[in-house]
């Protein structure tokens, strides 16, 4: 930045005023899958909004997937404070009179502002323009942070105890420092592969708030001294790719990635790469091979990516959510949070933001999202490499290290532990890349053993131990985890051939 004058402020000053009544149509992947556009038309919502001169805005899912198809009506008063109300499940009917009341400027409402500042605070509120993102605070943290030196940024990240949100929970600050210590050129790889069944929070982040990710990337590039960034996005996340590419173009055109906004001598180069399938492609060394044009198989570790990553150079590999979370570290509230993807036997499945400091219990969380605890025998955390938490342990606090990437599947009284375990084992078998023997052969043997009527638990345990110890990457290393957890937590399900 050449002067202390805020670049963002100039952008906002030049903007024209918006209309004061808005109808947000939550048309993300969730909205599309529930036919939101035709539902809106059928219910007369579009017609009503037009008759009231409300601006109709297509936006993303706001994380409340259970409410899809949904719309949010919003009105802004003279003081710029907004009143908004979401109308859920409009396919089941919508009270047009109530919708009209929000959009109609002649009706008065108590002002309502939830003051959200966390990771999901902009979900479902943006219209896809750069201006809307900046108005909602995008790049404000980067602008502040660019006035500090790299050292203090690294310290701040280490102090925050932010850890890798892809599931491994490696300390982010330490990772950045390790890469920064090494001679460049340095690379940043954003892991947006998100191929773990039951996890859909990165897709929501990409669709709903791509500028937050770009802001996180800019901060990392500055703090670590990154020359080139690759954003590796799951090839099936079409909306996410589209949304991120649009945001990137907006950022580039507006000058955010240029000298007007960035600190002196800093240049940012971001390239998007689409994946092409395979659970293993979410493994960090597989992504490196994929970007280099090699076969997508894992590498030996060490060397670690912070020493020898892309083309043998120091590389930071961060999950989408980790980089997005970086932008929340300089605000007073809330403390670091974690996104969780909730599905299964629950009234309100979707993407939720929970405290990452272990202050929330499973009971507290499940009740807050509408669970009837007596009908929940257990939850499954983290899909095919996850573990079960049974009802007896619901009073325990939610610890980041146990939660993986944040996939929470709620079981019902009808759930068959054996079926779920077999289904997860089958998934690991199909997704094994075949590079190392313990995983290639082990996942097949594990599925076979589990499908027996009387399962030889001793053999299962031995096999899992070999896979844990000898697999090249965590797909094989953790494939036995849900099986072990199922045997531990539900011993009655398993009739051992040994007994």
């Amino acid at each position, binding site marked *: 930045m050449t002067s202390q004058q805020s670049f963002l402020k100039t952008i906002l000053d030049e903007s024209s005023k918006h209309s004061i009544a808005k109808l947000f149509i939550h048309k993300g992947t969730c909205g599309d899958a529930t036919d939101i556009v035709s539902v809106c038309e059928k219910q007369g919502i579009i017609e009503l909004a037009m008759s009231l001169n409300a601006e109709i805005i297509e936006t993303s899912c706001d994380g409340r997937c259970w409410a899809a198809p949904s719309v949010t009506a919003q009105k802004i008063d003279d003081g710029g404070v907004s009143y908004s109300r979401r109308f859920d499940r409009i396919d089941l009917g919508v009270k047009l009179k109530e919708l009209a009341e929000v959009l109609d400027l002649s009706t008065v409402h108590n002002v309502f502002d939830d003051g959200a500042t966390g990771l999901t605070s902009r979900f479902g509120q943006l219209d896809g323009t750069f201006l809307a993102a900046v108005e909602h605070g995008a790049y404000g943290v980067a602008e502040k942070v660019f006035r500090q030196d790299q050292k203090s940024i690294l310290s701040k990240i280490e102090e925050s105890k932010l850890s890798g949100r892809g599931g491994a929970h490696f300390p982010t600050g330490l990772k950045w420092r390790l890469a920064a210590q090494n001679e460049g050129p340095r690379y940043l790889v954003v892991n947006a592969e998100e191929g773990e069944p039951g996890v859909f929070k990165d897709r929501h982040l990409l669709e709903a708030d791509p500028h937050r990710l770009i802001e996180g990337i800019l901060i990392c590039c500055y703090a670590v001294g990154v020359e080139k960034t690759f954003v590796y996005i799951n090839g099936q996340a079409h909306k996410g790719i589209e949304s991120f590419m649009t945001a990137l173009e907006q950022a580039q055109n507006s000058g955010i990635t240029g000298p007007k906004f960035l600190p002196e001598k800093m240049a940012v180069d971001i390239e998007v790469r689409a994946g092409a399938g395979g659970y293993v492609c979410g493994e960090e060394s597989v992504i490196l091979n994929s970007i280099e*044009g090699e076969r997508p198989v894992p590498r030996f570790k060490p060397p670690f990516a912070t020493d020898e990553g892309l083309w043998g150079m120091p590389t930071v590999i961060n999950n989408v959510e980790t980089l997005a979370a970086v932008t929340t570290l300089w605000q007073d509230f809330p403390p670091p949070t974690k996104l969780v993807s909730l599905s*299964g036997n629950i009234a309100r*499945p979707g993407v939720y933001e929970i405290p990452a400091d272990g202050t929330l219990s499973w009971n507290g969380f499940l009740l807050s999202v509408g669970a009837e605890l007596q009908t929940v025998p257990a939850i*499954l955390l983290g899909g095919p490499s996850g573990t079960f938490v049974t009802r007896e342990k619901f009073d325990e606090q939610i610890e980041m290290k146990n939660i993986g990437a944040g996939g929470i599947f709620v*079981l019902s009284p009808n759930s068959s532990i054996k079926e779920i375990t077999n289904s997860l084992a089958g998934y690991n078998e199909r997704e094994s890349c075949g590079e190392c023997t313990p995983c290639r052969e082990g996942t097949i043997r594990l599925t076979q053993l589990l499908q027996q009527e009387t399962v030889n638990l001793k053999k299962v345990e031995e096999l899992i131990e070999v896979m844990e110890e000898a697999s090249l990457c965590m797909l094989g290393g953790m494939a036995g985890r849900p099986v072990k957890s199922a045997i531990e937590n539900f011993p009655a399900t398993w009739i051992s051939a040994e007994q």
Partner: protein
Amino acid sequence: MIPFDVTADDAGDRLANLEKQLLTLPSRKSYLLPAFHMAQEYLDWLPRESILVIASHLRIPLSEVYATATAYSELRLEKPEYGAWYVCTGVACEAAGAQRIIDAIKIVPEKFGRTDCQFLCSLAPICTDHRGKILGRLTENRVRALFLEDSGDQQTS
């Protein structure tokens, strides 16, 4: 999009066009996956001919290009057949009654396939219809209604 057919009249033109498109990518190994995407987007699958063109543009041995292409589950090395409905059989969809959807679709067996998790667990059970559209929170009745609608469409068209 019409899948590439080596016996079709336009086969030569399409390959020549692909070669031209590939020129926009730097001739470096790192662009192998983007080249696959480019070819698959244009030809709908990766016929042998396209692999040859990619290998020659990026100067990578053919065997290596094949080895890499076979490692990605979303790259199609065979001409795709369309018209099937794919039911997600991830854990959340199975719990939400994927089997009932499968039974409803199975009435027309040639129209049925299964997929692993499609990452829309919050709207389970889901299915991708024959046009590639994702349908969330699916019920057997809705499947039946859609099938009726579809056969109606075909009769009128």
